[in-house]
């Protein structure tokens, strides 16, 4: 007999997961070598895009019994979307996994969820005063971002304390303000800056430097006050309605003809921001506004390249020649297709020689809050990543996203390499390279 949960789950999959998108997958397997979890599990098809799509379809069709193993297969997905550019059939995997998470979230019995949250809270964070103190900083961020309810439901707090121990060491330190570089006159462009909730709390310095560098390149920067968290983490956790609530607020906050671009400096946010259009295409009130918003969205590296930063970097000379490498932000690369621009900036940075990291385009295991939810798999993936870093021995590992930055720094510390190298955000890297070599 089919259980009530099974029936409920199947209906939820039918309601939320698009059958036509599922049918796009012809199971050729071209996605397999691109998938970090498939590789990290010694080629377990269950943890591949093709396997997950087959499971989604089987859930719809009633061909598989919903149990922990099926749930685990979906939970284990990083959402890095490296499978999308690898897919000749153009399967919209990102949409499918988001819809799957909504389907699960909707059908899962709530009392069980509450039990998990309770266990996590009382046995985990609240049981230990030290752990609590370490958690506060990030918790503030989660409260501020409105993510609290979303993340509670998925019970991530139980995994928080052990990860926090490592995280604490890699959180950015507030720097003292240095001399501002002189800016170009006259102003060539006007942009609106999307600050991002994490970037605006834990990475304030990076945001300040982003604005200063833009001004240095002759751009006028405005920071709309009413902006909110982009909503990506909600969207990726099966809370798309809440993600879209934030989306609408941001669209309203940036709805002005007064600037040429909306600039962001976090790859994960940028991808979601650029997909507001896709998510709101059927919204009568917001479809047009969302399209305008997404069209104006641009990541910081692309803006720097557009503004001619490469030439200005080349003009600066340095005697030093340290190795710098780059770890792609999955969403910047796979969703926004931006990977040449950051590399070109690093190639032209004074005092550094750029070397490509092996599999730089493959996920580091951060993946939003994945490293909190799936610490074991995240660790395996990070270990694979660090193998390449160890071989290359760079002095800087540059990233374009706060999550990747912290994850790479955790990796460096686990390897005991923190004296030799450092993970830095591309804005901080460029800012320092310019400041150091400017007369």
């Amino acid at each position, binding site marked *: 007999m089919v259980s009530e949960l099974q029936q409920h789950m199947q209906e939820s999959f039918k309601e939320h997961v698009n059958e*036509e998108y599922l*049918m*796009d*997958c*012809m*199971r*050729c*397997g*071209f996605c*397999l*070598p691109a998938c970090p979890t498939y590789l990290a599990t*010694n*080629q*377990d*098809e*269950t943890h*591949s895009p093709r*396997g997950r799509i*087959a*499971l989604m379809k*089987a859930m719809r069709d009633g*061909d*598989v*019994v919903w*149990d922990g*193993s*099926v749930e*685990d*297969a979906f939970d284990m997905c990083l959402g890095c979307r490296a499978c999308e550019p690898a*897919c*000749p*059939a*153009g399967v919209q995997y990102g949409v499918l996994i988001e819809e799957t998470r909504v389907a699960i979230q909707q059908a899962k019995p709530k009392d069980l969820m509450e039990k998990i949250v309770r266990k996590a809270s009382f046995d985990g964070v609240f049981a230990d005063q030290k752990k609590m103190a370490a958690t506060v900083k990030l918790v503030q961020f989660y409260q501020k971002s409105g993510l609290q309810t979303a993340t509670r439901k998925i019970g991530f707090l139980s995994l928080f304390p052990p990860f926090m121990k490592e995280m604490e060491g890699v959180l950015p330190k507030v720097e003292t303000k240095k001399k501002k570089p002189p800016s170009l006159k006259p102003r060539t462009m006007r942009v609106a800056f999307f600050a991002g909730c994490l970037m605006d709390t834990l990475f304030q310095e990076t945001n300040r430097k982003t604005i200063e560098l833009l001004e240095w390149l002759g751009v006028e920067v405005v920071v709309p006050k009413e902006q909110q968290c982009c909503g990506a983490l909600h969207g990726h956790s099966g809370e798309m309605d809440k993600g879209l609530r934030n989306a609408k607020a941001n669209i309203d906050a940036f709805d002005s003809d007064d600037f040429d671009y909306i600039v962001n400096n976090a790859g994960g946010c940028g991808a979601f921001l650029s997909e507001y259009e896709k998510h709101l295409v059927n919204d009568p009130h917001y479809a047009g506004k969302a399209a305008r918003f997404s069209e104006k969205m641009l990541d910081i590296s692309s803006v720097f390249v557009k503004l001619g930063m490469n030439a200005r970097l080349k003009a600066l000379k340095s005697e030093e020649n340290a190795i710098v490498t780059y770890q792609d932000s999955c969403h910047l690369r796979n969703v926004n297709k931006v990977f040449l621009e950051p590399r070109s900036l690093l190639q032209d940075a004074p005092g550094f020689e750029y070397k490509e990291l092996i599999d730089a385009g493959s996920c580091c295991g951060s993946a939003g809050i994945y490293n909190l939810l799936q610490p074991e798999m995240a660790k395996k993936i990070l270990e694979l990543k660090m193998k390449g870093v160890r071989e290359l021995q760079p002095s800087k590992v540059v990233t374009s996203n706060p999550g990747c930055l912290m994850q790479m720094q955790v990796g460096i510390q686990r390897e005991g390499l923190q004296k030799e190298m450092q993970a830095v955000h591309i804005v901080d890297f460029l800012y320092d390279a310019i400041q150091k070599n400017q007369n």
Partner: protein
Amino acid sequence: MDANLAKPFTSIVGESNIKHSQAQLLAYSYDATANFQAKPDLILSPKNTEEIREIVKICASKKIPIVSRGSGTNLAAGTVPTQGGIVLLFNNMNRILELDEENLTITVQPGVITQDLSNFVEKHKLFYPPDPSSMKISTIGGNVSENSGGLRGLKYGVTKDYVKALTIVLPDGEVLKLGGKLAKDVAGYDLMSLLVGAEGTLGIITEITLKLIPLPISKKTGIAYFNSLEDAARTVSSIIAHKIIPVTLEFMDKGTIGAVEDFMNIGLPRDAEAMLLMEQDGNAEQVDRDIQTMIAIAKKEGATSTTMASSNEEAEILKTGRRAALSALARKRPTTILEDATVPRSEIARMVRAIQEIAEKYNVQISTFGHAGDGNLHPTCLTDVRDKEEMERVEQALAEIFHVALELGGTITGEHGVGEMKAPYLEWKLGASGIDLMKAIKNSIDPFNIMNPGKLFAKETKMRLVIHNG
């Protein structure tokens, strides 16, 4: 699953190398073939030949089916466990064991990815030519079991031309070693040829020695576009008639060009009816001469434009596009069902024309691409498996394609294998006596039918079509 089934196998391979969760059984229930799916009872990842022997012995005594599976890219349902049982994986047997530069051989375990092997030998200035389109994913074990072809088959042949030695676990658990690093070997029946391409129905391959050749010094790639499929097909025949054997002579029709362009965005002309990708390798002087001649022939046969890849990178991008053709076509309709009909290369123009007529006759959408130089075409039906009426027409159209291919002196499958999908048509090619002989071989080697049962041999042969013209 019967909980006791896993027990004896767990003690052989260990807890971490056995899979049987709900999700895992589903994830190993398919390959790249549309419309075939069945769950296994157990998935095992042995670490060596000895473990495979023990597994097979248990299976033989309990009559449990075993399906060997590389990466599951099979296109004829050859790796779908349609009778349940055990799916055997080679993810723990994926090491390159020895590169022998004196005998020009490489010995590997079956789980090595084809592309990885190719990259490895090229670093040593050696060359392993077989390059199936799925080579980034496919395993050498799968290639040997299917006798896979590829883009370079025209000049360099297919997998079987490179297999020098095999270690096989037979259905009774005995280990058989065939061949060696030998240039010549006529000791007895050519059993190796029997095992290569046997689609896992006669035993389990556990070690493979392959022949390598020196890496060609230079290669160049030309492209020609045409206003009609037949102009392209005539070009192919004419190139061969001019005594040029290029490495690659690949063909894509308009529908395929459009789908590949949707995926790759490399500026292929969507209005061209057909495209030929022509590659030659060897010493620089001859490569130049052959490419120029091929381009001149294409122009003479009516090519609307011709060009040369400006660099190896560009040539690589074009070939990547061609390799992605089948999957890219999946963009157009929910289901893609492809065929692998092969004719003598002199008949390629006629075959192409027949495919067009068949598509019209049954009102089905067919896009064609393939290894034109080999006479090996991949007419692909774009359809929707949920539409029963359309699926019937698709099946009729495909059956008629087989029929025409055989009439032209061809075969029902050039490189994808028979599997379960084409089993009902095998007798069309082999005749009753051919099937009987094959069955006799199968029965004497695998009397309990535990090795990939249900493949090659159909319960029933399809009725041969009676074609009414007009």
